[in-house]
């Protein structure tokens, strides 16, 4: 895989208000408009409330009269005022204008703006590139139907291209959210929803599962890697190839370990006999940035620790601890690192 031109191995801060994609940019504009209206409304109302009370307090101080003795403090002050006052005569007009009229005008404006933004967020490309994302407890299966390959926990896409994610789930409801690129969309078992994504910068974005999905909902994260077209094509080309067959040495021993262990029941390495479907496809594991759906950076040390006992990092996840000897683990790691 060619190196990223921008050195984008550091994840961008995720932020709704610093958009990096067309969808998020539209929403951020809406956010700022709504925020300023909100600030204005709060300022006006709170000012009126403070003025109403402060003026009243000042008047009350002026006409302070001696309270009848013998009553507790709380009732003394109230006894000063005969309860005969009436609200201002313009009260009804104020309520109708400031409480209903003005907000109605503001809200209708915001409603129209919101609906037009909603419409603009739809998938617009004629034949958008489609990526299927399937939710699992607690990781993401990512399929590229055009390339015919499957990866996990990261979505790679070309910049300045609208990509349509087709979302579904095999177990419970999840929700895919990449704040810098667009709003979120739920992954619902038995249904397919879609979410357009379009990144404007070749960089790496942080994403998360936003719908509570069980024990490890918190560590069901993902990254979205946007690449320039050439880099993306090279990446896709590489991903569509099966895993390299190691000739000999530690890597070949590692493959033996893999095929002889429980790994194969859950994981697939294309080009070998490992074809389990319960866990992520490992064919190009080494090309990914994270392990355990964003739980750890993908380094050799982390990978070793994850294989031996992933429960310490991500308690409750579905991968059991592996009973491997030191040499077995080392050769397995050597093999897995060849899976670029």
């Amino acid at each position, binding site marked *: 895989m060619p190196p990223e031109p921008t050195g984008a191995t550091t994840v961008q801060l*995720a*932020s*709704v208000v610093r958009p990096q994609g067309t969808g998020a940019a539209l*929403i951020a504009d809406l956010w700022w408009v*709504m925020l300023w209206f*909100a600030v204005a*409304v*709060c300022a006006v*109302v709170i000012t*009126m409330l403070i003025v*109403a*009370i402060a*003026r*009243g*307090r000042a008047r*009350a101080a002026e*006409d302070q009269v001696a309270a009848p003795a013998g009553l*507790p403090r*709380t*009732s003394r*002050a*109230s*006894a000063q005022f005969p*309860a*005969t*006052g009436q*609200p*201002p005569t*313009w*009260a009804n007009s*104020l*309520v109708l204008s*400031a*409480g*209903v009229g003005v907000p*109605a005008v503001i809200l209708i404006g*915001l*409603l129209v703006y919101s*609906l037009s933004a*909603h*419409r603009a967020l739809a998938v617009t490309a004629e034949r958008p590139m489609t990526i299927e994302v399937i939710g699992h407890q607690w990781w993401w299966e990512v399929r590229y139907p055009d390339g015919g390959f499957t990866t996990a926990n990261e979505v790679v896409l070309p910049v300045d291209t609208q990509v349509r994610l087709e979302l579904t789930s095999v177990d*419970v*409801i999840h*929700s895919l959210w990449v*704040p810098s690129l*667009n*709003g*979120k969309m*739920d992954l619902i*078992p*038995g*249904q397919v929803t879609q979410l357009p994504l379009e990144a404007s910068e070749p960089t790496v974005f942080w994403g998360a599962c*936003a719908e*509570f999905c*069980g024990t*490890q*909902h*918190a560590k069901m*994260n993902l990254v979205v890697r946007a690449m320039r077209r050439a880099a993306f094509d090279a990446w896709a080309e590489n991903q569509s190839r099966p895993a390299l067959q190691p000739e000999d040495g530690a890597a070949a021993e590692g493959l033996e370990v893999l095929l002889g262990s429980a790994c194969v029941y859950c994981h697939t390495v294309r080009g070998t006999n490992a074809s389990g479907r319960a866990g992520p496809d490992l064919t190009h594991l080494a090309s990914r940035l994270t392990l355990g759906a*964003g739980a750890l950076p993908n380094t050799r040390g982390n990978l070793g620790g994850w294989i031996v006992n992933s429960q310490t990092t991500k308690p409750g996840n579905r991968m059991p601890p592996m009973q491997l000897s030191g040499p077995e683990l080392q050769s397995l790691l050597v093999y897995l690192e060849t899976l670029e």
Partner: protein
Amino acid sequence: MITDAPRLRDRVERFEGSWRVPRGFAGWFATVNNSDLGARYMVTSLGFFAAAGVMALFMRLQLSVPENTFLDPETYNQLFTMHGSTMMYLFVVPFLEGLANFILPQMLGARDLAYPRLTAFGYWLYLFGGLVFFSSFLVDAVPDAGWFAYPPLSGIDFSGLAMDFWLLGLGAIELGGIATGIELAVTVLKLRAVGMTLNRVPPLAWAFLIMALAIVVAFTVLLVATLLLELDRAFGFNFFDPVAGGNPLLWQHLFWIFGHPEVYIMFIPATGIVSMIVPTFARRPLAAYLYVVLAMILTGFVSFGLWAHHMFTTGLPLVAAGFFTAASMMIALASGTQVFAWIATLWGSRPRLAAPMKFVIGFVVIFLLGGVTGVMVASVPLDAQVHDTHFVVAHFHYVLIGGVVFPIMAALYYWMPLLSGKLLSERLGTWNFWLTFVGFNMTFFPLHIAGLLGMPRRVYTYPPGLGLEPYNLISTIGAFVLAAGFASLLVNLVLSVRRGVDPPADPWGAGTLEWAVPLPTPNYNFRAPPVVRSLYPLWGAGEGRAEERARDADAATADAAGEAPDADRAIPEGYAAGRWPGVTFDPRLDAIPSTFRATPVTSVIDAVPQGIWNLTGPSYVPILTALGVTLAALGPIVSAYWLSGAGAVLAAVCMAVWLWPTPDERERVLARREREEYEDPPDAPEFSRRLVGKDTAEPGLWGVAMFLGSGAVVYGTLLFAYFYLRLYSGAWPQGAVPLPELALPAAAAVLLLLSGWPVVAGTRAIRRGNARGLKNWLGMGLVLGLAFLGLHVWNVARAGFVPSLNAYASVFHGLAGLVSLMTLLALAIQFAVWLRALRGHFDSVYNAAAQHSGLVWGFTVAANLVAYAVLYLAPRLAGFGS
């Protein structure tokens, strides 16, 4: 004319005797008195509040730094589930119901709520349900699927015993909530003081009426939804299972049809509280009363039309999303109306900033912030970003703590003199206010930003490096400040009860009727029922604009109540704390009736007196009924269905005892002519002798109507489920299920329709005094009804498929089962009325039970016919769905 003193003394003694709360064991478990039970509701709910608050502190500690290992993920997930569920189901709504139980009769001028035994039943069911729910901690099966429990996560494949605790514990609470809702609504409609026309109803009573009606509808939907989910889990039904044709989004629709009104069930009474406190401290009537009431009603209605704004990220069509956005924004107009009405009330007044008023100001400020973020999340695109993040966590805590808990604290400070007979400390109140206000904003304001920076909600931890650290740390520190604020409230409550200041009557100089009750509050609130001539009877005799409109109604009222007696006589002993211009206490009704509990019934709109409503005294039946229901709910949890059966039998027996009139009651109504001779002074107004009859029985009729309203919602919910499932199914019936046959169902429908006639004829007969006709017609109705039930069960049994086959089979059997259950219930009621008819219980005036039973049967016929049309005809309609 003048009642001689010894006779009055005797009567008062008898009166106080019949209202006395029993001591000891019976006092604990048999009391049905609204003020006891209201106070218990509030104390219990504050206990749950404290428990849920401590859970929140644990959660905030876990989130104080990234990658924290203070709590493991399972524990964290259990804590947020229990925190949310407890706050929503066990704290806020029960507290408000408790406040309503306690304050409504005093505010309305009634001696108790409409159905005292139902008050007790609601409380015990709440307590037992809450205990079942919390007992999950004992067996380490704590619910952990979140307070809205979305399937499939909450389904049998992903959640174990814990979900059964959640579903069945809360199911019991919902049932209790519906009972309380019906009772509160009927009380506001029918038991108001003479002269308290609709435009003299205090805003909080309006709010409680709207809350109660919303509870009856919304809680029923939730109750049905929880039962459907439990059917899925325990018996393999497939309502929500996508593998067998079900749809997990059906749950989301049903849940939020409940869940969104739930927010306003809490918020509307909170605004009602504010609309009581602001006028008191501004020393003047509420501005724009009419608009405030209309705004609350509008909020109640619209709240049922915006549930799907919780589902914007499930891929709703654009048109639907636009509708729900518009409806959500409309709520803001209702809130704006109220906020400006409060500002107008304060404008130019001399408000005193005692503790209740401080919390009201804090409420307006915090709620405003929660309101504007509410408009943001109503926008589909913006919601797609912030939905299910800590931004939303911040938003709804602003709405719920600012919008509801602050008014609740204001209410405690304001009404404490009525609750405990003591004032709360102002000094501690000031600490309480500032600690909660500052602590609250410190806790929740930063979470808006955490959400915008990509922090989803319900995460037990978060990675470093996303910039979330400072906001979470500030929030955790704020949570402890907030907790200190709530602790100071608790200290204040305890200290005041132990050694608080004894307040004078009406310590705040308020204008509404509850402050006319002497302190400490007597069990019966009012010895002589008040006659009201103003929205603020303690302030004015009706000079306000609202009062002018009621003037015409007054003439009728005055006639019925008799001319107002002179002022000295108008105030019985103990009520002489003030000389109030807008209220009189009719001495001719002083301590009337004395040998049993009763309160005046008035007409819904004009509050013209119609008669006397009999209120039941202490009884063990409510707690035993609640126990039966709880045991029935426990059965599936402990996998002992015999326990469910035993509980159901216990509950059914108790219900029968409950509804069967006591010999004392029967003697009273059937031999009423003799009783009134020695009971009433000769000059008592005529309505005080009217114990039975068409108008007098109206509170019962309203109660039955609301029960049937709840029943209609049950049918409606299942029909919604039916058509929702159908809409998203390729073929209907699903799978290899054949179309249902028509011949026998058609025969059953004809039988059902025919069974309606004898019931109508029977009730007509008894109104003409024909008791024999009633007996015969009812017997015939029973035979036809049983024939229908038999044929119906036979039809269903021959259907040839079981519910676990697919979603169509599930909803078919679900709806058919509902038809069976409703028919059985209605037949049981009709059977009881028939037995009573055989014993000669009814005559041309005393026949409410027969009328009610007829109404229930009429509803059953209509609802079952609709259900039959859907079951047998809908699958044949082409062109629906795809």
